[in-house]
């Protein structure tokens, strides 16, 4: 069972490499394969738990994490995010509607007009620029605080990314392709760490599963001592792979987020999260 799933994931690489359009995978089938893959890898872990990242693999680390989450270090940032929201509330309401709890669950989505994936952070900046406001920087600071505020308001709702056009399927496949292809000097791919070796340790770091990666962002990392966005993390992982990171909110990273968010469909939104 596990072998064939691994095989099907791996097979995708070579096929996509030769001809992207002709052999592109069906996202829903692909998502189910991935869910099955993690199920056969860890039969005792319930699907709902994948929102908790690497902590599902270690009772010890989980206990430490839960202790921190009792007095979460990101709450001040959520408050700061609320203040940012209120400062330009009229602007945001025009873009996102008047219910801040009904924003996060709609992102990322595929915009048919521009044929682009629209992420929450990207939409925030487009919204600001259209209103003549200065855009935020993408990795940390105000963008992360505002994004954390939206996530916090939507806690408990479920990831529900939709793919129902050729353009969206292509964006998914591009993101998937980036996830699977080995790059950089070490010959690593995201999949090697976050699919095949999820649950194992790289030095003292417990490798989290890709399923659920997007549910709890932005994340307050002990190492950062502040909130950082998903694309900041992507850049960090690419750097660790000794590969060239892309710019946050580049088309490449938006497609990658689209892929990761789609496969997390059905999981609870629980951002912002704390991570070691």
């Amino acid at each position, binding site marked *: 069972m596990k072998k064939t799933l*691994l095989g099907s994931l*791996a097979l995708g690489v070579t096929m996509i490499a030769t001809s992207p359009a002709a052999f592109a995978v069906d996202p829903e089938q692909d998502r189910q394969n991935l869910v099955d893959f993690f199920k056969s890898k860890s039969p005792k872990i319930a699907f709902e738990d994948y929102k908790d990242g690497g902590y599902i693999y270690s009772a010890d680390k989980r206990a430490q994490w839960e202790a921190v989450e009792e007095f979460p270090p990101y709450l001040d940032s959520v408050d700061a995010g609320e203040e940012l929201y209120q400062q330009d509330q009229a602007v945001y309401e025009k873009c996102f509607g008047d219910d801040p709890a009904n924003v996060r669950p709609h992102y990322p989505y595929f915009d048919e007009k521009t044929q682009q994936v629209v992420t929450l952070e990207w939409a925030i900046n487009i919204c600001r620029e259209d209103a003549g406001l200065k855009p935020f920087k993408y990795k940390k600071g105000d963008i992360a605080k505002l994004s954390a505020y939206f996530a916090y308001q939507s806690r408990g709702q479920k990831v529900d990314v939709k793919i129902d056009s050729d353009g969206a399927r292509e964006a998914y496949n591009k993101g998937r392709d980036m996830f699977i292809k080995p790059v950089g*000097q*070490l*010959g690593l791919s995201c999949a090697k760490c976050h699919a*095949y070796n999820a649950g*194992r340790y*790289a*030095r003292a770091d417990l490798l989290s599963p890709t399923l659920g990666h997007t549910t709890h962002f932005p994340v307050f990392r002990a190492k950062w001592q502040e909130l950082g966005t998903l694309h900041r993390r992507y850049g960090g992982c690419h750097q660790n792979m000794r590969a060239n990171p892309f710019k946050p909110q580049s088309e490449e990273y938006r497609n990658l987020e689209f892929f990761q968010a789609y496969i997390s469909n059905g999981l609870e939104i629980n951002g912002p999260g704390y991570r070691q």
Partner: protein
Amino acid sequence: MNLKMKQLLTAFAVSCAVMTAPVSVQAADKPAASDIEEGKKLAFSRSKGNCLACHMAGDGAQPGNIGPALVAMKLRYPDKQKLYNKVWGTSDSMKVPNSMMPEFGLHGILTDDEIRKVVDYIYTL
């Protein structure tokens, strides 16, 4: 060194690798203690071998467990050249599908001489 430069160098190392076969490891039957010591440093260093990221090795602190523990290497690799080839990533070495094991020589991560020292070190484990 910036990333671009590093990648150029890597590309260069790869193209060289195609042309030249990796050097033999057999140079010294009994490696110098200093080589073993240097090999250990290279193996543990995060910016060099970083073997501990994935392998338990000797007394290295906080090893990962992505790859098998590096123990009893002599027993498992009676032919030291085969061990060298695995770390270097020669085309005739053992290949595991989707392996995380970097090809240290092929991708120019370590020099041939550095790999020789790393192998001298792990051969003592």
